[in-house]
């Protein structure tokens, strides 16, 4: 069971029911659950969407797009049924927050899904969990069954005229399926290959119907917004970055864990105060601020960095999925880069040339390089390759592989050079063999 942590700086909105037994429907209700959906049932879709816009909630899946805006793109009239899709594929290395939501508060996802359905006029929602989350799927399935039993799902929910159904779905191991259109393909029983856009999912999505897809955390946040009011929620964060988010602190901190902090919270503080500083009193070397696909930041770049989408973007990286990976000064960046690119090589769906070939090539080059067989030109070649993938792939996975790679080379060139000419990895530890890499 993942350990829950807490810190005084936390503002517990999404996580307020964690560890309280709220996976049980009665307890959820006791803790104020299913009140927001009732509120929304009495309102118009436009009202719901406007509240969402006012909340300044931005997608927690990675891209940080305004949730209210996204919902407003769905056409009011549609010949085909509309759908709500909850993205619980959570596979970006560094990210484990949806894990806790499904574990401790599955009803918040259900409630949020119903509200989203009301907003766009959908009658069916899907909650898609990555295949590895089987024990969480059972919890969510139980929660859905309980909600059906109470009449919160199905025909005439909460005694109204509205109908809403939820289907849970399992993946089977594929990071790329977290990409919204690939997830739709997967849900339709196909290979997780993204779709050509346009058309965008809001217009042509699952089964060809207008679809909104949101991250599980985004959806779980929705009921809280209606519980506390959009204004109040928005006020917690920074301008255009409403509320809090679950930051997954990992790596070389003393107290890793998932902390709920207001948007804009200072990264340095997050590492040193919330996370208890670098493990074993070592020095900070670098931090990956938003999951493995986000460009690495140097200690000097985080001095005054507020963790919201805009500020991290300005600093040349991305807030991404909220996975803050802390790297100490005993870590080999080349090895870290290699492990990162190995992941993307493994997960590339293979559809497009730049990503399929680029990740394969980068992995081979970095592997050879790290093994001590690098040449000076490799360093530029690696960067050249990464830069030539950027912006040219079919979906953002290619960028997700290229961006961090380019940043590693750019910011740690010296360390790459230290590997040259058959020199052993300067960080090689006694007794630790070369990494095998899947």
């Amino acid at each position, binding site marked *: 069971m*993942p*350990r829950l942590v807490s810190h005084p700086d936390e503002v517990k909105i999404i996580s307020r029911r964690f560890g309280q037994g709220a996976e049980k429907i009665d307890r959820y209700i006791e803790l104020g659950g299913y009140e927001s959906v009732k509120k929304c049932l009495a309102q118009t879709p436009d009202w719901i969407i406007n509240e969402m816009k006012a909340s300044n909630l931005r997608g927690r899946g990675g891209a940080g797009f305004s949730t209210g805006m996204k919902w407003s793109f769905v056409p009011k009239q549609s010949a085909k049924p509309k759908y709500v899709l909850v993205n619980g594929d*959570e*596979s*970006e*290395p*560094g*990210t*484990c927050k949806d*894990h806790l939501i499904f574990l401790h508060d599955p009803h918040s996802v259900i409630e949020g899904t119903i509200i989203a359905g009301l907003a766009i006029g959908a009658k*069916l929602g899907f909650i898609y969990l*990555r*295949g*590895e989350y*089987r*024990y969480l799927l059972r919890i969510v399935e139980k929660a859905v069954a309980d909600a059906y039993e109470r009449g919160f799902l199905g025909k005439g929910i909460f005694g109204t005229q509205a109908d809403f159904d939820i*289907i849970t*779905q*399992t*993946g*089977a*191991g*594929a*990071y790329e399926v977290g990409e919204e259109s690939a997830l739709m393909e*997967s*849900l*339709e*029983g*196909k*290979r*997780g290959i993204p779709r050509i856009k346009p058309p965008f999912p809001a217009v042509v999505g699952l*089964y060809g119907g207008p679809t909104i897809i949101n991250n599980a955390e985004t959806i779980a946040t929705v009921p809280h917004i209606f519980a506390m009011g959009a204004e109040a929620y928005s006020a917690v964060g920074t301008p255009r970055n409403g509320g809090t988010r679950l930051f*997954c*602190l*990992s*790596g*070389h901190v003393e107290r*890793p*864990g998932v902390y709920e902090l207001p948007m804009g919270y200072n990264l340095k503080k997050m590492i040193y105060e919330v996370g208890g500083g670098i493990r074993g009193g070592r020095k900070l070397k670098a931090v*990956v601020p938003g999951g*493995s696909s986000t460009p690495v930041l140097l200690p000097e770049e985080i001095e005054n960095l507020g963790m919201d989408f805009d500020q991290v973007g300005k600093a040349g990286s991305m807030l991404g999925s909220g*996975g803050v*990976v*802390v*790297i*100490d000064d005993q*870590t080999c960046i080349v090895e*870290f880069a290699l*492990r*990162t690119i190995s*992941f993307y090589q*493994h*997960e590339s*769906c293979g559809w497009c040339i730049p990503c399929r070939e680029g990740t394969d090539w980068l992995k081979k080059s970095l592997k050879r390089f790290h093994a001590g067989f690098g040449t000076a030109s490799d360093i530029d070649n690696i960067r050249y390759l990464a830069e030539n993938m950027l912006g040219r792939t079919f979906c953002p996975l290619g960028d997700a592989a290229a961006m961090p790679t380019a940043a590693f080379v750019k910011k740690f060139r010296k360390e790459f050079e230290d590997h040259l000419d058959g020199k052993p990895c300067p960080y090689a530890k006694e007794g*630790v*063999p070369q*990494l*095998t*890499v*899947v």
Partner: protein
Amino acid sequence: MSPKNMKEEPLTIFSPQLSARFDALVQKYPVKRSALIPMLLYAQDEVGYLSDAVVADVARRIGITELDVRSVASYYSMLRFKPAGKYNIQVCTNICCMLRGGYELFDRFREELGVEHKGITPDGLFSLEEVECIGACSWAPAIQVNYDFHDELDPDRVPGILDSYRSQAKAEGEAHA
């Protein structure tokens, strides 16, 4: 000439429970094919891997070709076409786990089990796999044994974990006997 004639429905290779579950599953979605990936995973849970017979049975239930099934199944890394051990040990070595000793953990498993990545112990009890991030990054290093998570591990806990599964297997064996 080329399309094969539809054959008589053969008896299913799945247990009555799973078969009934599949019957329900194909009805559950707006489109039958949506049941494909869960079916493959559940079939693998029961049979151990996606044998030719599993592929054929699932293809028939959904009404697609075996090629379609293979094409989809081979995309997903949890689905396999070869048997694994009774307990498939999946060690995450991705960045967060790596930073906190994922490789040391993996090596310890290799030593204890005497198998490499994707290897199976001779008794068929365990198989070992190095896997990508399993969503337990803040509790690294983490592993999954089949679907069970074990987190905040260190190599010294490896023998204990293995023992617990050995006794679980033994208990099951006795229960069956």
